[in-house]
């Protein structure tokens, strides 16, 4: 029997099930316990697991990330929540200079099984300092894995995989999607890290996206369908390692690729995909690979500037038509 639950609940189920299964898993972060989470992801978890395993921290991202990284090296499996990934920048030193490099520096002796999670990217009119999408930052780092989810089913299955994974995993969510509902099975399941998901089959063009931009990708595909254009839509789900084989297989069929990416354009996830697909699939391409990214600027506050800066359905539809040489 499948159930319809929110992404918020799916994440909570994933964490709670793993905490029941393994006493070494614990959750730590700002407002995760008594306040039940700034976005209510951890609602009720303090009641179930108690203050030893659901821990409120002071506002000290560098410090509590370090405690997590140390604990992970010494036998525990921390889940560290950042209220948003914007604040995780303070902890980047621990993630990049310690967690990601432990195994290499220690010649394989010391691993660091830890999950860092929280909402990522823009969430309306929150201004420049609360709106950055960080997938490409972390995807650049060898030694860690980066997941960015778009629906409840993936949220739960990948959360469980992330907690069981023996390497540091960055898990990116979105404030705007916590209430989104989706079907989740009653029985236990795990989604392997590093596998993209073909959300919609199509013939004419491949649209690749992830996280909340999946709504734009699927919305554009629906619009295009009305005009007789059949788009295949792929949800990356994991950014690192990147499942480029699934994209390539799709491009072999459609011969066209459009990427919808909330990153800033320079050195973004779309840059990497474009490189990989032109290298591995040059002979299959009938048009240049194109992308829509966030504007090459911090996100401003005014509603019209937010709308102008971010990818949306009309921009995506237009771009698809361009790669199909239907426009001018």
């Amino acid at each position: 029997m499948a159930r319809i639950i929110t992404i918020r609940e799916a994440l909570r189920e994933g964490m709670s099930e793993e905490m029941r299964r393994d006493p070494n898993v614990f959750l730590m972060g700002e407002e995760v316990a008594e306040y039940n989470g700034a976005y209510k992801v951890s609602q009720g978890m303090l009641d179930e697991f108690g203050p030893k395993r659901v821990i409120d921290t002071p506002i000290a991202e560098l410090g509590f990330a370090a405690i997590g990284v140390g604990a992970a090296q010494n036998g525990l499996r921390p889940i560290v929540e950042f209220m948003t990934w914007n604040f995780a920048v303070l902890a980047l030193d621990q993630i990049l200079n310690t967690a990601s490099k432990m195994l290499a520096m220690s010649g394989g002796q010391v691993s660091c099984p830890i999950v860092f999670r929280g909402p990522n990217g823009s969430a309306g009119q929150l201004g420049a300092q609360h709106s950055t999408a960080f997938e490409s930052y972390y995807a650049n780092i060898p030694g860690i894995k980066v997941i960015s989810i778009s629906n409840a089913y993936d949220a739960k299955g990948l959360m469980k995989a992330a907690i069981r994974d023996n390497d540091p995993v960055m898990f990116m969510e979105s404030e705007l999607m916590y209430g989104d509902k989706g079907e989740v099975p009653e029985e236990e399941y795990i989604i392997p890290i590093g596998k993209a998901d073909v959300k919609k089959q199509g013939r004419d063009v491949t649209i690749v996206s992830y996280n909340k931009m999946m709504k734009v990708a699927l919305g554009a595909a629906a619009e295009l369908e009305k005009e007789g254009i059949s788009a295949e839509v792929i949800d990356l789900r994991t950014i690192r390692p990147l499942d480029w084989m699934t994209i390539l297989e799709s491009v072999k069929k459609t011969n066209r690729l459009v990427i919808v990416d909330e990153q800033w354009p320079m050195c973004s996830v779309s840059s990497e995909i474009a490189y990989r697909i032109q290298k591995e699939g040059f002979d299959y391409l009938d048009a240049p690979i194109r992308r829509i990214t966030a504007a090459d600027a911090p996100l401003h506050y005014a509603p019209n500037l937010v709308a102008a800066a971010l990818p949306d359905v009309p921009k995506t539809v237009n771009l698809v038509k361009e790669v199909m040489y239907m426009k001018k």
Partner: protein
Amino acid sequence: MYWYELMYLIRQFELMAEEKYKMEGKIRGFFHAYVGQEAIAAGCMTATRIEDPFVTGYRDHGLALAKGVSPESCMAELYGKATGCAKGKGGSMHFFGKDVAFFGGHGIVGAQIGTGAGLAFAEKYKGTDNVSLSFFGDGAARQGILHEIFNMAMTWKLPAIFLCENNNYAMGTSVARTSNVQDIYKLADAYEMPADSIDGMSPEAVHDAVARAVKRAREGGGPTLIELKTYRYKGHSISDPQKYRTKDEVEEYKQRDPIEHVLNTILENKFATQEEIDAINKRVNDKVAESVRFAEESPWPNEDEVLKDIVMEPNYPFIVD
């Protein structure tokens, strides 16, 4: 009288803006009200001069207004209009007014502690006797940057005043739950920095403490930490259900309301008549109403503003695909 008018302006501005947010949806994003903490802005203003740079966190409306950023441009900023104090680019958390040495509202908790020291460094370097004031919350006091900055500010005798606005909560977390050290002013001890703990509901007390610190800093004596015990009447932001505190606790603090307190002092000592107070109230309420009219009638920013104000260089090659 100045204190009363300024505090009343901040209070009325916040209440009006909150209404526009909640009732009409004209303001969006995070919105953190200064209601209850007005005495701090008032006391700091009379103890400093306009050239002294201020920098604060996202709870920035009160200090911006105090510094002299106009209510019109503040309200327009909340609306996201081109006439706002940051051209509609900053929003509630990022008010700015460089002409009045207001270096803004900042969104990353604790970062401004360091920025304030940098502002002070520049004043000292340039040879002025200006003093910087950095405001931060009790929650921000737990960030590591505080220690790095206190150490350098004290070592280099920077003309910096650090003001911890202790309203007892960081979102839903009380001060008691964040540290073994409840008296935040004691954090200065490790660096032998002078520190004070002050009633932040009293503009007089704030003024006196800040004036002492300013004098020391202007004379080359270096930084001071001032802990201001205050209270926010509203939730952390508009969306906060406030389950972590009781209504009684909020009421108790409202009994010590700084605006009421100053008003009583004025009337009891006959510094002003009720008529004069009524005239001030009317002037303030008119100003706030005018700020709303101004914001509503102002234009949205042009869409090409997306790629403006990003770098100073005029012909920067943005990636536009």
